[in-house]
């Protein structure tokens, strides 16, 4: 019998929570090493509100931050900001990343407990510095998790965009709140997405919200209905227009965290059957796979990504 070697399988790409951004990687490494002066230096140097929010989002992937940052945060609003933003991610980890109907009572208990920590830290931050837009943006998320009335989330969203009109994280969080699965409705979400896109100029990633809204609408349906929705000609046209105004626009900048927007379009185009558009986006992404939005699909996000890419690129 002849022994045949199996063809070497290509290693699967890995999800990098820092999305290939060197500053975010250094920031997360510093937090992992409990090296607050270094982490603080990186955060303090990150001025752009969207970059700052991205950096704070990435810190959610670092394990054990809550074990040591409390005493540091007592005297340092920046540490308190990291503590609050990290606690938001920490809360969602407790919730198991599943939709509410699948979540057990004790998971919810821990979820709320951590959200209360996040809420109180972030309120400490804004009481010292109301212009800390990232804190307002993350507070939109805690409002959603704590099931506060919509008026509270809207207040926080307004506070954020009064200070930075096109703040991506604030828009994304508020649109999530307006989803049917949280406290809003599909019409409301689409309306907001279009409104936000109109606020963003050419090349702004705010146009991505239109695609995200379609993905949300798709995941609210199941089976045939989901496929039918995302494949509708008007939806496909919307996706192309949104991509043309954001990721494909010549004025678009690849700021830290850019892969998530490309991945959003890759998923949306793949699901809608617009293979040429999907192929173009996959080419641009390379191996920069992001957990979101691939986690929306059942199963492993990396496999969903590689399968979709294999289907599109052949």
């Amino acid at each position: 019998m002849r022994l045949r070697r199996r063809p070497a399988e290509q290693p699967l790409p890995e999800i990098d929570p820092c999305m290939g951004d060197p500053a975010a990687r250094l920031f997360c490494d510093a937090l992992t090493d409990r090296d607050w002066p270094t982490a603080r230096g990186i955060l303090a140097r990150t001025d752009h509100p969207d970059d700052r929010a991205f950096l704070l989002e990435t810190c959610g992937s670092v394990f054990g931050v809550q074990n040591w940052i409390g005493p540091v945060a007592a005297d340092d609003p920046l540490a308190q900001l990291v503590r609050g933003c990290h606690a938001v991610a920490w809360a969602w980890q407790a919730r198991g990343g599943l939709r509410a109907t699948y979540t057990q009572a004790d998971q919810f208990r821990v979820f709320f407990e951590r959200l209360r920590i996040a809420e109180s830290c972030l309120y400490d931050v804004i009481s010292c510095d109301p212009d800390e837009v990232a804190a307002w943006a993350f507070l939109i998320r805690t409002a959603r998790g704590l099931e506060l009335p919509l008026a509270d989330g809207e207040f926080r969203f307004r506070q954020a965009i009064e200070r930075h009109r096109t703040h991506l994280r604030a828009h994304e969080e508020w649109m999530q709140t307006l989803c049917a699965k949280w406290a809003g409705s599909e019409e409301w979400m689409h309306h907001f997405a279009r409104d936000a896109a109109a606020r963003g100029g050419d090349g702004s990633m705010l146009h991505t919200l239109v695609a995200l809204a379609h993905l949300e609408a798709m995941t609210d349906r199941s089976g045939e209905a989901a496929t039918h929705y995302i494949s509708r000609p008007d939806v496909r046209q919307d996706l192309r227009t949104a991509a043309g105004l954001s990721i494909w626009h010549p004025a678009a900048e690849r700021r830290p965290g850019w892969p998530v927007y490309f991945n959003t379009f890759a998923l949306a185009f793949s699901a809608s059957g617009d293979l040429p558009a999907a192929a173009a986006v996959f080419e641009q992404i390379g191996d920069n796979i992001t957990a979101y939005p691939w986690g929306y699909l059942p199963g492993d996000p990396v496999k969903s990504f590689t399968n979709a890419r294999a289907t599109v690129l052949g």
Partner: protein
Amino acid sequence: MGSTVLRSTEVDGVPVFWAPGDGVLRASLWFRAGMADESLPTRGWLHLLEHLALHGRDSIRAPVNGHVSLLHSSFDVEGEPDDVVAFLRDVCRWLATPDFSDLEHERRVLRAESATRGSSATGNHLLWRYGARGAGLAGYDELGLYTAEADGLRELAGWAYARGNAALALSGPPPAGLQLPLRPGPRRLPTPARPCDQPIPAGFVGRPDAIALSGTIGRSTAATAMLRALERDLQRGLRHGAGVGYSAWSSYELVDADHAMLTAGMDVISEAVPTVVAQSTAVLRRLRDSGPDPAELRDDLNQQIRQITSRPIDHWLPFLAAREVLLGRPATTSPDELVAETEAVTVGDVRRAALDLWRDLLVSVDPAGAGDPQLTWLGGPPTPGSQPSGRRFRPVGSPVTKGELTIGQSGIHWQTADARTSAQYDELAGVIAYPDGGRQLIRHDGYQVTVEPTMWRQGQQAVALVDSAVPPSLRIPLPERTPDVIPRSSVRTIDKLRYWTNRPVVWVPFLVVCLVGVVLTVATDEIAEQAPKFVVMSLAIGVISYFRQRRNGGTDT
């Protein structure tokens, strides 16, 4: 206005504040001693002393009154100057050398008064916030009425009614012949209020069909403006808006020199209870996030200013001064100061006060309203660490009732199938002792461990151990309880029998032994031949029963 209108002098070493006024002379002799200075076993002693001091002094010509708050005691009189002079002289003499011949009578009067008094929402909030000491004592019954004895009361009067701890407020010039013959002694400034260690913002189960929100914040004009705004907003949101509430109320309690606990609440209709926490906290959040409506705040402040400027100053300014000076704070010398402070309050100040309140928020609500995720719901004491070593007691209903009581050298530990609590003797605020042996060991945080001799085997020995371990000064002997309130085990002998019969693993081997015994003594040879088979079968039943029981999780009846 603009001139200093508060006058002050000193009589017999006691600061005296007064303002020129017309009409009947009113006097209040204030002392810096209040409920927060008592302990659980002496809770109510100042009230008792106040009653004893005023006993027989009231008259139509010169009505008298007394008051004990968290931080102060006061003795008030109004009448002609001579009557006021006579009252103050006599009451000071009594306070300097108290006479306890009326002790039993006043103790009975106050017990009767205490029995008719229900718990207040503010008292409950003080209790949950501060436990069984300091300001939290306001939430407890006057247990000291059962411990009061002449020597202890005399010692309390010695420091509480000392000259340095007193201040007199008068609504007119000091009358001729005024004397305040108190014993010498220093002023006792209040210690900072120490809240229990618990997660905040939090909620607890309170009175039915009601909600109350409280927080301890720094004293300021903005804080009082915020409290009025909160009360108005609750009234507007819940009563006028949602139509689910009755009248909103608020209270402002000084808990130490610089802080006050602010409480606002409302009674609500039963149907609204499940959502009332969300609605009420939304009202406070609005105030925290956006502040009050500027026009409404201005109207509110103007109304306050009208009150300050329209009320005769001799009716309130000296009294305010006496209260503040005893707290070690400067006296307000003119209404202009208060007017200026009130005028300076901004929307931002009120918003910040609301944020401070939020950061220290405690919410009480009808049991059906508990559970809102914004709050940590306080249900019981923090889970104790390791179980102490000591003598162990089993429940009377054992093995049907699960549980264990351990009484050790340094503390007591109590546990049932689903709860456990412990108390270290050195963290006890008091121990309530009933003649039937029932004991309640109340911790400083207000949680307690109860020992009922009727519920534990050799329960009276458990009680004796507790009594020998706890300092006698913490003991609060209460009168006999009626038999219906003494808890008893509901487990009957038949329940225990059923418990064992449901466990064949226990009785089958016993039966086998009996059977073998019978066979060996009376059976014929043939039966004896069959006996081993019976033994094997019986053992098999026993083993099968054992494993079935284990598979079923060994559930108790």
